[in-house]
């Protein structure tokens, strides 16, 4: 497998100004996605994982830091990006009920990207839409239907089809199955995995579901209050988690088989709640919930270090030159 980086995020910051103060939704996040891999970004609500995806898509510009995509800097909002780039970078949103316009037919939705980028030389956009429907396994007679009449799985398939239309090389998957039932989730995930191989895609897979992540991602990053606290290859990540927060998450996941239970790390009881984005604790933002918190934890922000080869962690328990004052 190649290690060519298709997308690199460096020191990314996204702050939102509100009347009650500044919300640091994303604070100094760096990672890169390798060509043809699925990079998983995991976190609870308020961790900033979706914001990362939205900044990459240019839904809003970053406050600081850079995003490099296929060698070009794209640290700006979508309106200012070159059209050619827009074709290469796509997103599937969490809830297809809101990402598909309820007043446009499935055909109209699927034709749009082809039309915008003039991707039908003969002008037969309807045919393009039909072909896309074949690809996402939707009967052609659904073309004139509205999204509201479809089930969640079918709607999400349409959203995937729309993302694929322009022939992208990178897709942000923003919790693509969290609005779906388990029995339908499987079909969508398998479709995504198939397309990845077929079309040489790289994914940034954002989710709160670690079990799902285990099955789809090659590498995983965990976010907590706007920062990545741990990042590793999936097998290493699940067999040897380092950060106390990761351990807490893993022990909190409900599982159904004894084999899964055996895989969990020593039980770390989950305590406390994620802090409000307006009053992030000083030092390590996880320290109020951390059973291993030390004095330094409330004072010094741990920087992220490569503890082992390919395994990064931001925690004072794993000292390196940078963290051992």
């Amino acid at each position, binding site marked *: 497998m190649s290690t060519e980086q298709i997308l690199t995020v460096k020191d990314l910051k996204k702050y939102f100004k509100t009347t009650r103060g500044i919300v640091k939704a994303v604070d100094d996040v760096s990672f890169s996605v390798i060509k043809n891999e699925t990079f998983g970004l995991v976190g609870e609500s308020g961790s900033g994982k979706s914001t990362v995806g939205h900044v990459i898509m240019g*839904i809003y510009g970053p406050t600081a830091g850079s995003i490099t995509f296929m060698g070009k800097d794209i640290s700006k909002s979508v*309106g200012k990006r070159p*059209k050619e780039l827009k074709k290469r970078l*796509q997103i599937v949103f969490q809830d297809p009920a*809101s*990402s598909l316009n309820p*007043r*446009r037919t499935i055909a109209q939705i699927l034709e749009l*990207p082809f039309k915008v980028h003039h991707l039908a030389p003969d002008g037969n956009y309807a045919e393009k839409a039909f072909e896309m429907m074949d690809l996402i396994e939707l009967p052609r007679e659904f073309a004139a239907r509205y999204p509201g009449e479809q089930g969640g799985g079918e709607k999400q398939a349409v959203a995937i089809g729309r993302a694929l*239309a322009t022939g992208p090389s990178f897709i942000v998957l923003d919790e693509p199955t969290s609005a779906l039932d388990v029995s339908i989730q499987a079909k969508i995930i398998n479709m995504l995995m198939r397309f990845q191989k077929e079309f040489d895609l790289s994914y940034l897979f954002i989710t709160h579901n670690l079990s799902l992540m285990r099955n789809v991602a090659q590498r995983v990053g965990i976010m907590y209050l706007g920062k990545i606290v741990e990042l590793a290859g999936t097998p290493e990540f699940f067999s040897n988690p380092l950060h106390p927060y990761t351990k807490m998450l893993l022990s909190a996941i409900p599982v159904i088989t004894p084999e899964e239970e055996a895989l969990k790390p020593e039980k770390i009881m989950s305590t406390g709640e994620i802090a409000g984005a307006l009053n992030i604790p000083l030092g390590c933002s996880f320290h109020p919930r951390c059973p291993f918190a030390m004095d330094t934890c409330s004072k010094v922000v741990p920087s992220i270090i490569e503890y082992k080869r390919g395994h990064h962690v931001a925690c004072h328990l794993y000292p390196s030159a940078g963290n051992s004052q």
Partner: protein
Amino acid sequence: MKGAVFRKGPDYGKSWHKFSNNYLSQVGLGVVALVAVIAIFAPYMAPYPSNAGFFVNYPEAHEPPNWIHIFGTDQFGRDVLSRIMFGFRYSLMMAVVVLSLVVPLGVVLGLVAGYYRGGKVDMVVMRCADIFLAVPPLVLALSICSVLTPSVFNAMMAVSLMWWPWYTRLVYSISSSLRNEAFVQAAEIAGASPFHIIFREILPNCLGPILTKITLDAGWVILIGASLSFVGLGAQPPIPDLGTMVSDGANFLPEQWWVSLFPALAIVLVILGFNLLGDGVRDLFAAETV
């Protein structure tokens, strides 16, 4: 859900079914249709078409309702029923002219301000709308009419000038919230132009409330027109405007009550019709999104 369907629009069959099951909306549709037919064919349907304008027949003045003049006659001996039938013409014309001026303008302003939410366009448009909405529309319309020469045309212009902000505000509230919807973001990411997003993605989602408001407003515009002429700042005699007829007739209360009361009831009928119809239109669009 069964069978291959190539429908171009939402399920109109179902919507119509729902609409036609609503007894009151049907009454509304009936009333509006009746008024429209009377207005269009007034010269042929009115028993005394000549009574619409300058016409004097003193021997028959102030006749109470009878078989010859079902709604009686006014101080000049004109048939009240005939004048009401012609009155509908001016009422409907008022509604049509005002709304066809106001709706496109107000809707486009609201859409654009909503799309560029937080920007300068939003600032200017919505602050202007707020200023126009700072006083009841009738009051400002009255004052505009007062500095102009009272006429049907000036009344229409004055009402139009007052009415656009309602549409701007309505559409703005929808479009500014849709601006952040994932489907709008998806269109942006696909590279769609602002024109496409405003008119193809956002506008269709505003249609339900807009059409409902248009239907309801038809009644209210007619009322405000009648109010202007009731005061004497709208249509001028001898134009058979319902408002003018009510106020003229009021001078002869209580003895010649019919001169005032029947035009008043005609106004009520028109407003009631549009109100009932408007509720039906609202249901129609609610049914569609089920």
